[in-house]
């Protein structure tokens, strides 16, 4: 099985970090994978996205132009990539920041008010990981078993205090029911 994932949002929302975390889950599952960030002259408030491919076979092109799964963290990202998602694919929408609905009817859509949820649990910077939690639950692309180990890989020792926060955010997303 191959999953092509595109995570897109504003710079500063942690889309690259979210992608890296998912990539580490793939690594811990012994899968083939690639992670590729957009690296334009980006800054906080600009647009950022990253391509993650998880596969049982060696990954060819690391560039995701037609994602199986799109995680859209802001409106420009949904506008830009909605049509690129493969038919039968999935779109995860941060419904706090994106007021419109997805127009496509041939994809599965999950509306998660992740920015609001993040504020409610006192972790306003971790809307990204709430989306990741929902992604893990619904996509089946990675299992929940390695969440802890993968978090240890991406949360640096210097920020060890943020481990619990990330874990809580993922859990919140995983257990969120629309």
């Amino acid at each position, binding site marked *: 099985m191959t999953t092509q994932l595109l995570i897109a949002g504003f710079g500063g929302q942690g889309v690259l970090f979210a992608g*890296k975390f998912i*990539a*580490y889950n793939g*690594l811990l599952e012994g899968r*083939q*994978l*690639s*992670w*590729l*960030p957009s*690296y*334009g*002259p980006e800054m906080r408030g600009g647009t950022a996205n990253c391509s993650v491919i998880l596969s049982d076979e060696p*990954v*060819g*092109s*690391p*560039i995701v*132009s037609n994602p199986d799964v799109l995680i859209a963290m802001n409106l420009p990202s949904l506008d830009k990539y909605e049509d690129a998602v493969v038919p039968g694919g999935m779109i995860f929408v941060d419904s706090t920041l994106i007021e419109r609905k997805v127009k496509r009817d041939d994809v599965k859509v999950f509306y998660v008010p992740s920015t609001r949820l993040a504020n409610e649990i006192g972790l306003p910077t971790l809307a990204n990981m709430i989306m990741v939690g929902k992604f893990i639950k619904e996509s089946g692309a990675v299992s929940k078993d390695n969440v802890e180990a993968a978090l240890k*890989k991406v949360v640096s020792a210097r920020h060890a205090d943020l481990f619990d926060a990330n874990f809580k955010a993922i859990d919140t997303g995983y257990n969120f029911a629309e």
Partner: protein
Amino acid sequence: MADKVLMKGNEAIAEAAIRAGCLHYFGYPITPQTEVAAYMAKRMPKIGGTFLQAESEISAINMVYGVSSAGKRVMTSSSSPGVSLKQEGISYLAGSDLPALIVNVQRGGPGLGGIQPSQSDYFQATKGGGHGDYHLIVLTPASVQEMADLTQLAFDLADKYRMPAMLLADGTMGQMMEPVELPEPGTVKQVEKPWAVTGTKMEREHNIVNSLYLVPEELEKTNIERYERYKIIEENEARWEEYMMDDAEYCVVAFGIAARVSKNAVVAARKEGIKVGMIRPITIWPFPKKPIAKAADQVKAFISVELSMGQMIEDIRLAADCKKPVDLCNRVGGMIPSPEQVLESIKKAAGGNK
């Protein structure tokens, strides 16, 4: 071998270099290779090595010349505009028969260009770049694993043949993360360098590292001897990978990120019944002439997939001796061909008749 870790291509270069025994790095920051310097800045002080951010690329390459003269493994890294600045020093390294590693994580040009990936420094890397008759060994990684493996190989080949080697990557390879397996530190065996200028201790004649020969007969001799060495390298060190070439009627030639994209297209074309394969050069100097020449007797056409206006295509035509047509499939300026574009080119070459 240790466990697999996730690393950016640029970081893999830096860690692999350290594990290959390179304890001296000189550079100047430029996107998209800055992580190499950043990694070195963090690690070198902890292991007794040297990280120095020079005042310019020109200074950095001349510092490389100095350390190499003393017989130590040394490297610099940059991206296209910065590598142009280094060309004088690279020619001096070649003229003085000094080993060193130069990393070029290419971006779009010419001029200041852009910061997105490119392969348009192919000519510069393989056909000189600096002045005079010389070559670099040029290695072209197509995965993060190869960013590490070919860095180590580059040091070994540079030392073996006493010449500079270049790792020619691109922005995608530098920025992407993939699982990578690194060799245990300290497992690399380095060659003796009796030519190095390390002090005579009054026990031997002076060693001289120099590229100035004012007597033309002498300079001619050094050039001819160097080219005898190049001939041996061309004979023995060309590296490539073949993919689905056994029954291929069409042959894609691509390296680096272009090869990764092309692989998707080859798989897709095969599904449509088109017998296409790929030759992926891993060295572009020496260019893998033999598999191309062999394929020229087998296939109906070649397709050169490049992130340039068509540079490698010249080497393919030469190696194929113009026996078969060579089409170009390209994007430039920081754009990357899509697998669909490569597939279209394959179909066009196949002319609709599978």
